[in-house]
C-alpha cells in the first residue's frame, strides 16, 4: 500500500509536468489546428534556462541567493525565455504559412524542432547537466503523511502546476484576452471581422503555452535533475499524448490527460517494468486514437467544406 501511494505521488508529479506541456499543445491546436512539434524543444530550452540561472547564481551547492529566492527566479527566467522563444517560432516559422496547405506548417514545425535540438547540442554538447537539486532543497525536507514522506520538491512542483493551471483557466474564461482566444479558436476569420487582432491573439497563445512549457522544464530539472538536448523529444511526445488523450484543443482535457499519462507511466514502471513504461504510454495513445480519435473530452471533429 505504501508503495502504491508512493507511486501515486510519483505519477502526480510526472502528470502535472505532462499536463503543463499538454496545455501548450492543446491551446495551439485549438487556435491554429497545428501540431506544434517544436513544443517539446521549448520545454527543453526552459530547462536549460533554469540551469543557466542556477549556474550563474553559483550552482546548487553554493548559491549566492537563498533557495527561496533562487527557485522562483529560475522559474521566472525560464518562463519568460521560453515564452519569447515560442512567440519567435510562431512569428518566423508558422505565421508565413497561415494560408498554406495544412502539411506545410507541420513540416516547418518538425524543422524548428530539429534545429533547436541541434542548437542545444552545439551549445551544451551531449553531456547531461545536473541541477543537483538535493543540495539546494534537501530531499529530507518534506511533509510526513502517515508512513511515507513527500519531499518538498515534489510538493513544490505539484502546487506550482496547479497554480499555473488555475491561472490559465481564469485567464481563458474571465479576461478579454481569453475571450478573444476562444473566439479565434472558434472561427478565426469571423473573429478577425469582429475586430479581433487574431495575429496578436495567436502570438499571445504561443507565449502562454510556451511559458507553461518553460515552467515544466524547470520542474523536471528540479525533480529528476537531468537536463540534456534530447529531453524535449520524449517529453514532447508524452505531453502530446496527454493532450490527445484528453481531447486536443480542450483545456481541462489536457490537464486530466496529463495526470492520466503520468500515473500510467509511474504505475507501469513500478509494476510492469521500467523498460516498457514508454511502450505503455504509446500504446495508450494509439488505442485512444483508434477507439476515440477525439479524445476523452473532445467533441468529434466534423469536416467542413
Amino acid at each position, binding site marked *: 500500500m505504501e508503495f502504491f501511494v508512493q507511486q501515486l505521488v510519483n505519477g502526480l508529479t510526472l502528470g502535472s509536468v505532462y499536463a503543463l506541456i499538454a496545455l501548450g499543445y492543446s491551446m495551439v491546436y485549438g487556435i491554429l489546428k497545428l*501540431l506544434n512539434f517544436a513544443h517539446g524543444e521549448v520545454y527543453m530550452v526552459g530547462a536549460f534556462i533554469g540551469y543557466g540561472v542556477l549556474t550563474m547564481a553559483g550552482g546548487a551547492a553554493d548559491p549566492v541567493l537563498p533557495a527561496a529566492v533562487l527557485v522562483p527566479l529560475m522559474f521566472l527566467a525560464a518562463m519568460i525565455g521560453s515564452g519569447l522563444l515560442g512567440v519567435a517560432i510562431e512569428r518566423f516559422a508558422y505565421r508565413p504559412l497561415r494560408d498554406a496547405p495544412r502539411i*506545410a506548417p507541420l513540416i516547418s514545425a518538425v*524543422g524548428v524542432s530539429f*534545429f533547436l535540438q*541541434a*542548437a542545444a547540442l552545439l551549445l551544451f554538447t551531449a553531456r547531461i547537466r545536473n541541477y543537483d537539486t538535493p543540495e539546494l532543497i534537501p530531499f529530507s525536507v518534506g511533509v510526513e503523511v502517515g508512513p511515507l514522506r513527500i519531499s518538498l520538491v515534489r510538493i513544490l512542483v505539484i502546487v506550482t502546476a496547479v497554480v499555473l493551471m488555475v491561472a490559465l483557466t481564469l485567464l481563458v474564461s474571465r479576461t478579454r484576452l481569453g475571450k478573444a482566444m476562444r473566439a479565434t479558436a472558434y472561427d478565426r476569420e469571423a473573429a478577425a471581422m469582429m475586430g479581433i487582432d487574431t495575429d496578436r491573439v495567436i502570438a499571445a497563445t504561443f507565449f502562454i503555452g510556451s511559458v507553461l512549457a518553460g515552467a515544466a522544464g524547470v520542474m523536471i530539472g528540479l525533480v529528476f535533475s537531468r537536463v540534456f538536448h534530447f529531453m524535449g523529444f520524449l517529453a514532447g511526445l508524452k505531453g*502530446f499524448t496527454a493532450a*490527445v488523450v484528453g481531447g486536443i484543443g480542450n483545456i481541462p482535457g489536457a490537464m486530466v490527460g496529463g495526470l492520466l499519462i503520468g500515473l500510467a507511466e509511474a504505475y507501469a514502471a513500478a509494476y510492469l517494468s521500467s523498460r516498457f513504461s514508454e511502450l505503455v504510454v*504509446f500504446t495508450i495513445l494509439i488505442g485512444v486514437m483508434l477507439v476515440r480519435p477525439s479524445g476523452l473530452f473532445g467533441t468529434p471533429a466534423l469536416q467542413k467544406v
Partner: protein
Amino acid sequence: MTKIGTDEWVAQVGERTEAYRGLTAPVRRTWNGIPLGWRFAAAMLLVALLPVATDSSYVVRVGVNAFLFGLLALGLNVVVGYAGLLDLGYIAFYGFGAYTYALLSSDQIGVHLPAELTLIVVVALTAGLGYVLGLPSRRLLGDYLAIVTLFFGQVFVQLAIHLDRLSLPWADGPVNVTGGPNGIVGIDPIRLVGVTFSSVTDYFYLLLVAFVALAVGLHRLTASRTGRAWRALREDPLAAEQMGLPVNRLKLLAFAVGGAVAGFAGAVFAAVQVGVFPQNFETLLLIMIYAAVILGGAGSLPGVAIGAAVIAVFPEVLRTPDYARLIFYGVVLGGLVALLRPWSRLAAVLAGTVVLGFVVRFATAAAWPDAAAVAPGGLVARALGAWVATPPNATTVGNVAFVLLVPAVLAVTRLRGPARTWALPTVLYLAAFVWETRLVAEPSVTRQLVLGAILVVMMTARPQGLLGTPRVEML
C-alpha cells in the same frame, strides 16, 4: 504573385514561360527540350560510371547510401507526395524490412533462407504492414494520422531495443529476438540466381538497377489511373470521394507501396551493413528523408531523386572542412547574388563584409596576440585565417555568436531597403565567424542544424520544393 484562383495547370504554364526569359534561358530551353527519359538515362549512366572512375570504396559507399536514400525518398513520395498522407512512421518500414531480412539470413534464429525468397518475404511483409498501418488512415485525418504513425515509428524502435529478453510461455529462458541495443550481426550477403553480392560495388549496381526500375515504374504510375486518383485524393479527399474514387483503397494502396519500397531498401541496407542496430532507424533518418522529399519537391520524381542525392552526399562533404567551407561560402555568395539587386548594393555589402572582417581580425589579434587562428586546412583556410577574428576561448565566444546570429538572421529577413544593406555585413561576418569557430568542427551538428533550417526555409519560401509544381488552393 497572388496564388489564389490559379490552378496547377496555370502554374505550370507560368513556370514554362518564366524559363524562356533571362540570361540562362537558352540553356534552360535546350534542357527542357530533351525528353525526361533521356535526361534520366544520361544521369544514371554518369552515376553508373562512378565505381569505375574512383577506386575509393568510401565514395562507392556514399553512392550506395545515396541510392538507399533515393529508394526511401521515392517510396515516401508515394505516400506523402502523391496521396498526401503524412506518414511519420515511415522509417519503421525500413527498419522492419532490415530486421526481417536479418532474422531470416543470420544465426540469430538460425535461419538462412535463400535471398530470392527472403526479399519476397520482406517486401510482402512490409507491404502487409503498410496495409495494416494504413487501416487507421480510413478514419483518422491529417494530423491525427501523423501522430499515430509517429508513435508507430517510436514503438518500432522501442521494440527493437527491448525485444532481446522476451519471456515466452513455451520457451525455457528469455528469448532474444532482436538482439537489443547490440542488434543483429553476421548477416548473409544477398545471393540472387547464383550471383553473390559481396563488395560494396556489387550492391551499388544492384541498387542502381532497383532505383531505375522503381523510378521508371513510378513514372508510369504517375500518369496512370491510380496515380491520378492519388493526386485527386491529395488535393481534396472529400471531392475525390464524391467523384466515386475508392478513397480508402487508394490510401491503403499508397501505404502498402511505400512500405514495400522501404522494406526492400531496408533488406539491402541490412545486407550491405552486415548488421542491423536500433539506432539505424531513429528520427534523424526520418527527418533526412523528409528533407529530401521536401527539398526536391513532393510529388515530383526528378525532384525527389535530386533531393535524395543532395541530402545523402551533403553530410559526407561536411566532413572535410575545406569542402564544407567551399559549400558554405558558395551558398552564401550565391544567395547574395540571387537576392541583392542592383549590383552596386551587392558590391557594397561584400566590400563592407571584407573590410569589417579585417578590422575585427586586426583588433582581436592586437588584443589577444596568442589566440589560435582558424582550424588548419588548405588555401581557403589560410586566407580565412587572416580574416576571421581570433578571440581567446573561441568555443565560448562562438557559442555566444551563434545565439546572436540566429535572431540576427531572422531580423535581416524582416528588414527592407537601406537598413538591410547596412545590417548585412555585420550579420555575414557573424555567420562566417560562427562557421569557422564552431560549425566547421562539428559536422554532425551542422548537418542537423542545416536539415532543420532547410525544412523551415523551404516551407516558408517555396513549399513546392525546387522542382515541384506550385500547389495552389482554389478559393
